[in-house]
């Protein structure tokens, strides 16, 4: 196998590779700004310079020239090379800043240049704290600056589009953003205007940067030049914790980070998963964070006649159980949910079975034509595939709607959905029907008819599994705390957060903004027990999922360990075959 030597260590490599990417893959850090693995290589930042040599070959014989000890003699290129552009060649010898003073100095010189016109407004910059320019300046930059002039002034707050605002002074002209619109989203909406130090990205006159993926440019901008119009100046990076999870806006199951301060989700950013969303996240997946903070329920309640009364968990469980007990099982409709996790839907199926009712159905939320063959899908739910694999089929909306209208049901048991706003029935249709409702937001239109209303934990507050449209099972973790004590949630939160070793004075012990809700996998067994059936999962969703994957072929292999942070692909199943 061909070899390449970096700083005295020899590595084998295969195929065609660029030196910078190869080094990064080996864990050899090299400073760089413009290079991005998903886009073309412009080699414009000039930060990734290294010294490159090749074994010297005898001109006539073509043989490698060896020194007295039999080692190949290395001939270095006189000029430093931008490692992002260098193709690996067998026998190549590379010196980085670790072994070459020349390289070290060149990298420092380059950072000196980069900083001459940079405003250094880190104290008010959203990017500070995770800024590649800031980090690499501390690591590789000069001690001070020899630049003694007024910096160039460029536009500080340009609304490129509805969601992205540019601070042109911070821009280092890496062209990542313009390359993104040219090569990745292909909207071609951004270009660089002007020359020299006055360069900055901009749209064509009269155009607006409304690319449905525009906010990805904010993530890939190596400085704080592109900011989120929505998130700008809202929070410093070190005030938030970020939790690896997935988005639930549609059936892609894009991997993301939820950024939380004081138990409020402030932003959502992409998390790399080459099998799902690569590096990207559509704007619509990000701007939904308010639903986790706003219009959340104050706690469980019970409706008697037409009066809703605030209740407590024990009472609401008991009420739900008694409703189940008193209704004719054949006149109970269980609605599962493509918004809820596999675990929650699984428990609901079990409950329905224990009660003797028909298997649950779920409400599809599909908007034909809304998808884009990329990360936005027609299906606006994250777990329709999970439901199908559990044997939960879509409801026949026309039939079931008319049955509800005709009062053919005594009880509707709704898991984390909203049949009224979905158009399955009207609130009036439910006048004579009891409803047990697990719900997220007070905007839920079925809520006014709920006999027992149980606030459910949302994706940012729970542990569970979703299956995306490609049959990939992925698990989520809690990003923020809810009221009450739940060991599973605490453990999950504790082990994956960087702020694991905090004190009670730190923000994640903040009692503010904790919602009085519970994950459905905690509520359903409680209700089942009160109903009189034996449903007990002391180890929580992990145990539930273990049971699911060991008893149902459609989920085989989807253990929490296997899913990890990137998920596992499940075996293909024919629709309907899952049961």
């Amino acid at each position, binding site marked *: 196998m061909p070899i390449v030597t970096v700083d005295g260590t020899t590595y084998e490599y295969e195929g065609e590779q660029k030196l910078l990417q190869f080094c990064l893959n080996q864990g050899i850090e090299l400073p760089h700004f413009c290079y991005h693995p998903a886009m073309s290589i*412009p*080699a*414009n*930042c*000039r*930060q990734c*310079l290294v010294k490159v040599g090749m074994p010297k070959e005898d001109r006539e014989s073509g043989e490698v020239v060896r020194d007295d000890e039999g080692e190949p003699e290395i001939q270095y290129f*006189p*000029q*430093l*090379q*931008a490692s992002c*552009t260098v193709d690996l060649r067998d026998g190549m010898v590379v010196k980085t800043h670790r072994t070459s003073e020349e390289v070290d100095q*060149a990298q420092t*010189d*380059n950072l*000196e*240049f*980069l900083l*001459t*016109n940079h405003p250094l407004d880190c104290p008010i910059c959203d990017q500070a704290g995770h800024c590649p320019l800031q980090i690499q300046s501390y690591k590789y930059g000069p*001690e*001070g*600056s*020899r*630049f*003694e*002039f007024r910096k*160039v002034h460029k536009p500080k707050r340009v609304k490129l589009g509805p969601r992205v605002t540019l601070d042109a002074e911070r821009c*280092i*002209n890496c*062209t990542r953003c313009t390359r993104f619109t040219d090569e990745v989203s292909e909207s071609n909406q951004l*270009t*660089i205007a*002007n*020359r*020299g*130090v*006055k*360069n900055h990205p901009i749209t064509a006159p009269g155009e607006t940067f409304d690319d449905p993926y525009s906010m990805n440019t904010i993530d890939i901008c190596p400085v704080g030049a592109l900011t989120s119009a929505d998130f700008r100046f809202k929070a410093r990076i070190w005030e938030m914790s970020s939790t690896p999870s997935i988005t639930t806006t549609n059936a892609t199951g894009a991997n993301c980070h939820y950024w939380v301060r004081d138990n409020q989700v402030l932003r959502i950013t992409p998390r790399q998963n080459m099998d799902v969303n690569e590096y990207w996240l559509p704007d619509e997946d990000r701007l939904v964070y308010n639903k986790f903070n706003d219009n959340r329920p104050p706690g469980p309640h019970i409706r008697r006649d037409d009066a809703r009364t605030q209740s407590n968990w024990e009472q609401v469980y008991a009420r739900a159980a008694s409703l189940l007990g008193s209704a004719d099982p054949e006149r109970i409709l269980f609605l599962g949910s493509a918004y809820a996790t596999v675990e929650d839907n699984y428990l609901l199926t079990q409950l329905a079975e224990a009660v003797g009712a028909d298997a649950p159905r779920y409400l599809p939320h599909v908007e034909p034509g809304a998808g884009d063959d990329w990360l936005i899908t027609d299906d606006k739910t994250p777990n329709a595939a999970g439901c199908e694999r559990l044997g939960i089929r879509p409801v026949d909306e026309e039939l079931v709607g008319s049955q509800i209208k005709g009062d053919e049901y005594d009880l509707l048991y709704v898991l984390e959905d909203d049949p009224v706003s979905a158009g399955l029935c009207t609130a009036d249709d439910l006048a004579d029907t009891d409803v047990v409702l697990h719900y997220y937001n007070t905007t839920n239109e079925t809520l006014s008819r709920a006999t027992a209303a149980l606030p459910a934990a949302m994706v940012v507050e729970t542990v569970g599994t979703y299956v995306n449209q490609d049959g990939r099972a992925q698990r989520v973790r809690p990003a923020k705390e809810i009221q009450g004590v739940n060991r599973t949630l605490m453990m999950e939160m504790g082990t994956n957060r960087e702020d694991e070793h905090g004190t009670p004075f730190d923000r994640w012990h903040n009692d503010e903004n904790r919602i009085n809700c519970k994950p459905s996998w905690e509520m359903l067994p409680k209700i089942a027990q009160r109903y009189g059936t034996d449903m007990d999962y002391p180890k929580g969703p992990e145990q539930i999922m273990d049971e699911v994957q060991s008893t149902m072929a459609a989920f085989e292999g989807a253990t929490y360990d296997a899913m990890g942070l990137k998920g596992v692909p499940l075996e293909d199943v024919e629709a309907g075959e899952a049961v």
Partner: protein
Amino acid sequence: MDTNGMPQSPAGDWRSYERMLLPPIQDLHELNVYEEHGGYDRLRRVLEDDEFAPGDVTDAVKASGLTGRGGAGFPTGIKWTFMPEPDDRPRFIGVNADESEPGTFKDRQVMEYNPHLMLEGILLAGYALHIDTAYVYIRGEYTDWIVHLKKQLQKAYEAGYVGEDIMGSGFTMDIVLHKGAGAYICGEETSLMESLEGKRGYPRYKPPFPAQSGIFGSPTTINNAETLAHVPLIVEQGGEAYSNIGAGDMPGPALYGMSGHVKKPGVYEFPTGMPLTDLIHDVCGGMARDKAMKAFVPGGSSTPPIRAENIDGLTMNDESLGEVGSRTGTFCPLVLDEETDMVSFLRRVAHFYQDETCGQCTPCREGTSWLEKILARIDEGEGRMRDIDLLLELCDNMDGGRTICAFADGAVGPVRATVKRFRDEFAAKCQASVHPVSTDVSAGAESAVAATE
């Protein structure tokens, strides 16, 4: 070899030289006049003569020793051999008529007075390299010349010299005029290709070289407009004969675009290798204000200036100018007399590069602007002694492969040379500075200190 007590220069007996690129023929730009004087005969000969294979044209150009007149002086014939064998991709020539190097104005003369020579050269090159289309990229400010060239090209099309099945030979090639939008950087060959493709004029890094992947990713050769106008001359005389004209290291006729403090500035055609003193005194009638000369910038603003006292015996070819750390560039010398403030001169040159850098590479974008700022402050009497070494250090941090294209090298060359060769003038301006700190600081290597001093 002495003749009449004068040392023989590579330009030989230039006084009796007969012009070939711009011969003194009335209305030569008109197609019929050009035809009367043997125009397009060379193309006809090459196309009609079965003996003349495409490779033979390349061989003749190689034998001629012709070097590029766009500023880098690369041997044209060798460049042509970089073209791969024809495959299913289209093949292009980029004719570089972006002529924007300060002090350079000779391609314009060719386009004005002898446009068909250039077109014939393009067609010959096209035949040699199996080209489908030649794009002539013309500097945007040359509006009149674009109109003029367009008309002449139209006539050549009508006469069947360009387009389908040229002169019934089966050889087909198009020539397309493309107007630049006023950026110096678009004269850099890879930037020119990007611009042609309708993109922002950002140079590409190499490899791949244009011959491997050029215009629209296809095999491409980029040549200067004047360079191609030499090709018919070579085909006519044969490479051997051509190679005997002028200096051996870069033979042939040359267009000397003289400007600055000389009595008769203008474009003059003589063989390469002209003695600098002959150019100034005999060709241009001496110094404009009858002042002593201070500096000689041989070929465009990016060639390093030479001090006047060093020019004796120097001739206009790279071998000779290399001895004093300069080069011929575009063969368009700028002559500066003793009244010239070299700091101001350099400040103006630095301003140009600051303004024209495309700005994609960090060192070039930031460095050109920084250099100008330092030079401005020295020029305005506010310089610090340490600024002088800082200038030189910044130059070292900008060139030598630290950037994508040669612009940075071109921007840094004159700064380094001018500061080194005229250091006394820079020091004098700093010494008188209103900043007392700086006069105390010696101008040693250590003298550049941090801004926080």
